[in-house]
């Protein structure tokens, strides 16, 4: 009886959003009486940072400080259409819609500023700090707040914009069945080292090493948070979570949350994360999505690591100690890779 170490690898090519055309989201942007801006969405922020990222995208597109943008979301009574927060689509789909809406609002803002400064809108630029000035002549400047006031009280303009992102439906080639199911893909490689106890069937996770290609990381701290946390959600799927962990009969199964296993603080291990930024051509500021992708490769990598360690293939998830022991019994004991 012994503990055997093994290493498993998995790579992933992950389509962002739902496939086959459609998957739209809308955004509205308008200026407020205080000269700041509100983005209105219906997209839910579950804590992954949708509000932070759409706020950044809107501020960057408008050319105003991020502090001057508010995001009002998650109320389908007041927000525009959204498909929802899933399929790693938030930053890509909703971000694109916000960008389109902010561009339209920015155009009106620049026209209103041009009227106040008596210049052509094309000669103006934003300074990103709350003012608009003539290119090359920063002293010929007007505060965004004053532009908003002029638009409201003198010019009769609404500084507002509408945005939608809709993936066009891809035609299917009648001969080959070939089509373009998605427009944007993210990628990852995930390596995990495990130790399998051939007496108990227990699998301990020793180390994770991963690399993610996710377009542009619009908010690197949020990206890191998703990647580190998401890998443990994947690990939880791979090794822990099931409503029926016990054999031989479902009558022995869990009755409640007490027996639904998830990893705790004592189960985690070091995780080296590398992020590669290759801007996506159709992403907002080059961003793709990473939400689900950080959990998915963990499962096959763990299965591969167990095979590497003891020579058994467990094809059902989660890979509980019982399943490992049954597989070891069928195989006639552990056969580490070096012995095969």
């Amino acid at each position, binding site marked *: 009886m012994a503990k055997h170490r093994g290493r498993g690898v998995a790579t992933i090519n992950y389509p962002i959003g739902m496939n086959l055309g459609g998957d739209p989201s809308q955004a509205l942007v308008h200026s407020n009486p205080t000269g700041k801006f509100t983005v209105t969405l219906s997209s839910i922020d579950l*804590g*992954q940072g949708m509000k932070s990222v759409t706020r950044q995208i809107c501020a960057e597109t408008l050319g105003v400080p991020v502090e001057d943008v508010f995001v009002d979301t998650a109320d389908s009574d007041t927000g525009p259409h959204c498909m929802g927060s899933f399929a790693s689509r938030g930053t890509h789909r909703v971000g694109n819609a916000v960008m389109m809406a902010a561009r339209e609002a920015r155009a009106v803002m620049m026209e209103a500023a041009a009227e106040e400064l008596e210049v052509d809108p094309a000669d103006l630029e934003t300074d990103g700090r709350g003012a608009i000035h003539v290119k090359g002549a920063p002293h010929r400047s007007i505060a965004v707040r004053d532009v908003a006031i002029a638009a409201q009280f003198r010019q009769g303009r609404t500084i507002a914009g509408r945005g939608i992102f809709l993936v066009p439906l891809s035609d299917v080639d009648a001969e080959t069945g070939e089509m373009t199911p998605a427009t944007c893909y993210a990628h990852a490689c995930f390596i995990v080292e495990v130790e399998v106890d051939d007496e108990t069937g227990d699998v301990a996770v020793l180390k994770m090493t991963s690399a993610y290609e996710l377009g542009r990381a619009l908010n690197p701290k949020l990206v890191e948070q998703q990647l580190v*946390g998401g890998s*443990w*959600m994947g690990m939880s799927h791979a090794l822990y979570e099931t409503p029926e962990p016990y054999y031989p009969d479902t009558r022995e199964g869990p009755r*409640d949350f007490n027996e639904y296993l998830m990893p*705790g603080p004592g189960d985690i291990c070091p*995780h080296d994360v590398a992020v590669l930024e290759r801007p996506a051509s159709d992403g907002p500021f080059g961003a793709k999505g990473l939400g689900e992708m950080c959990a998915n490769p963990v499962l096959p990598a763990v299965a591969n690591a167990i095979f590497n360690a003891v020579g058994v293939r467990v094809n059902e998830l989660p890979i509980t100690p019982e399943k490992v022991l049954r597989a070891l019994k069928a195989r006639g004991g552990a056969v580490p890779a070096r012995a095969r």
Partner: protein
Amino acid sequence: MKTPVQFRLNGEDVAAFAESGANLLDVLREVVGDLSVKGGCWQGSCGACTVLIDGAPRLSCLTLAESIAGRSIETAAGLRRGAELHPLQIAFMERFAAQCGYCTSGMLMAAKALLDRNPSPTREDVVEALGGNICRCTGYEPIIQAVLDAASGDRRRRA
């Protein structure tokens, strides 16, 4: 039948009528109105409802409300002093130690109990103190780092 219960909550005297047999979690949320306490499983599995009772971390879902008469309860709502956040709250923000935030109240209180009795914990101490608290989003590492940060920040301030 309802039973009157008096206790201290975050330093203030509280009197409430608790349904006989009610748990502290439900009384804090529904009778007293302290929504900083979160209910995850109502059976002692997840740690989300952790509060301090006379300084010790306890699962409020498994605590009979009538049993806390005369005792002192601390919840996440009492961590900040006016506008000043508790060092743990600052460290949790700086380490991005929350995503959905549902476990955060319980994590903060479990961590506070640790730091109150051991201002210089090791990583193993922190892992053990948080061992009864489940988090779905973060993978725990940011939370562990935040608690260690808060502890070392406290040491710096005292030095």
